[in-house]
């Protein structure tokens, strides 16, 4: 659908308030991050003075011991959780979309039910269990709960995508000489790519932003950024760590923005158009 210039401008006009609504808090965080600590509480939205002290503090200064390992943990945990979740969800969703087996509905319903559970109700038993079996404060100890959190949604999204891909695609591949695995890898997965990227991004964000699991199931070794931020302290006990926290928040937002910019084109659905008659 091509919008006329008039439609484009009216869409633009409508989106301005939405953009402001979402961007104002972001600018606020940025402004706090670059304000010197003396004027943190001056109540001005636009900083009078700009300083990079807060960034220096968390990257090379006193808070770097807390922040940098947490950043590393965050990256490792999120990438692992995303990778495993997407691969598992892909196989599961493919089976659900293509095969007729008893209990198929059951799996989908259970997956949906699981995603309704309030996260906080899982934390206490997990904390106990993890301490007993030695997963407390380890990277797998975080990856596993993230999987359980993100798999249901991933399976639902991906099975919807797989179901849209015409059966004939795969049959054509088989007739062309592909094994089932080849047909899956060379035809089905590329066609489901928008779905795969969507689930990957959802999974990554869920894990990246999680606070509840991160603060309850880790101590010093596997703490991720959202949890680590809670342990920031000011330069003295009379100072609030607001500036440092804001600076850290700005830094952890950067990978998220980059991810969205890279993948926004891939997320566009409708790749299957042209496969079958127009």
């Amino acid at each position, binding site marked *: 659908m091509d919008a006329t210039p008039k439609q484009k401008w009216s869409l633009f006009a409508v989106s301005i308030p939405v953009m402001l609504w979402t961007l104002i808090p972001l600018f606020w965080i940025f402004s706090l991050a670059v304000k010197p600590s003396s004027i943190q509480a001056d109540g001005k939205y636009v900083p009078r003075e700009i300083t990079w002290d807060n960034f220096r503090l968390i990257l090379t200064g006193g808070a770097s011991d807390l922040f940098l390992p947490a950043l590393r943990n965050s990256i490792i945990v999120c990438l692992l959780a995303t990778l495993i979740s997407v691969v598992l969800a892909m196989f599961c969703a493919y089976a659900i979309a293509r095969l007729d087996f008893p209990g198929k509905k059951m799996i989908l319903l259970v997956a949906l039910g699981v995603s309704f559970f309030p996260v906080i109700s899982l934390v206490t038993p997990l904390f106990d269990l993890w301490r007993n079996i030695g997963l407390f404060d380890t990277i797998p100890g975080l990856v596993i709960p993230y999987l359980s959190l993100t798999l249901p949604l991933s399976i639902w999204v991906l099975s919807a995508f797989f179901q849209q891909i*015409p059966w*004939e*695609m795969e*049959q*054509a*591949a*088989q*007739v*062309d*000489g*592909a*094994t089932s695995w*080849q047909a899956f890898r*060379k*035809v089905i997965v*590329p*066609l489901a*790519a928008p779905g795969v990227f969507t689930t990957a991004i959802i999974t990554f964000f869920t894990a990246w932003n999680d606070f509840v699991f991160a603060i309850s199931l880790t101590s010093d070794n596997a703490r991720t950024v959202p949890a680590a931020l809670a342990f920031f302290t000011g330069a003295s006990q009379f100072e609030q760590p607001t500036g440092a926290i804001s600076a850290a928040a700005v830094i952890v937002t950067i990978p998220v923005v980059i991810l969205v910019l890279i993948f926004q084109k891939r997320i566009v659905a409708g*790749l*299957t*158009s*042209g*496969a*079958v*008659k*127009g």
Partner: protein
Amino acid sequence: MSQIQLKEISKVYADGYEAVKKVSMDIADGEFMILVGPSGCGKSTLLRMIVGLEDITSGDLMIDGKRVNELAPRERNLSMVFQNYALYPHLSVYENIAFPLRLNKGGISDEEVKKRVGDAAEMLELNDHLERKPANLSGGQRQRVAMGRAIVRDADAFLFDEPLSNLDAKLRGQMRTEIARMQRRLGVTTVYVTHDQTEAMTLGDRVTVLKKGVVQQIASPRELYEQPVNLFVAGFIGSPPMNFLPARVEDRSLRLPFCEVPFGEEFADKVKGKDLVIVGLRPEFVKDAEIQDPVPGAVEFEADVDVTEWLGNELYAYIPFESDEAVRAKLDELDRDLDGEGMRTQMVVNLEARSRVREGERARFFFDPKLMHVFDPENGDNLTRNEEEAKRIAAESEEDRKRALERAKRKEAEAPA
């Protein structure tokens, strides 16, 4: 190159529905076989069983004398063109055509792939579109890409599943001749499923007519047209379709709605004991007596014309008649089998364009009773089928086919490689 044999192949679905019932046929090397029938006759199921996308419930499928029932599609070395083309939308036209070659592990070098895709693209006039994605192609171009993907590797046979049904009428005609040319040139055994009888008649060396999963007749298009074995085949082949008229058997003649047709000694035996038969008369066998002198032995009659349709090269005239109650049920059933609409009983005649027959007027017609078919109203069998003539036509078409193949091979050999 290979021959395909079907021996009593049946398909029963999990819910007990029997889609294909004991179908047997031999498809010769290089032959163009058509599977045709109204929707739901099991023709596509049969094709999918040959290619291996559908399990065979019972019977044997042999390719070059080897039983292949249990082989996966990729092990059968057949290629197929799907009704909706099933192109890979994420790949360019070049990669779509090259796809089967790329799967061949280690066997084919990039240069060989390039050459073969180039050849196929050349043949199908796709050279200008190789870098485009299927989404940006027209229907006919997509169709050609699907064919390119089928011919690029040395498959033992080509299978087509209603490949032209998504194209508009003009393109369909063009692609039809394109397919015929390609098949002759490559000389590859081909099985082609269609519900369009024009495609069946023009493309096929032989045509298999199916009804509700049962083979009605396997014969050359000419034999189907001239010597159909039963009411169903007669009604299915030909356009406009054959007229079926109820006829009372009298002492030495058949009483039709418009006229009386005398018959000889030989015929009397065939209709002995029956007092009602169904007469099949093709629209083109009826002539306008005003502009043409009746042939010797012709039967003349007068009838009221209800509607006429002038098409430039011919004229259709519709003549209503009262159907006999006794055959009504049979003809209605036939109509349903042929996906008909249960329309009024009328006779269509296909006259010359210069005919002056006009609607609402009474006109004089004649036809040659020798061309008329007579069917048993009980089981639909054709009582006038001439087995010897049928054999002669079959032998002739087989000869034609071999000659055409040979000619194609000679041409191929002569052409600079």
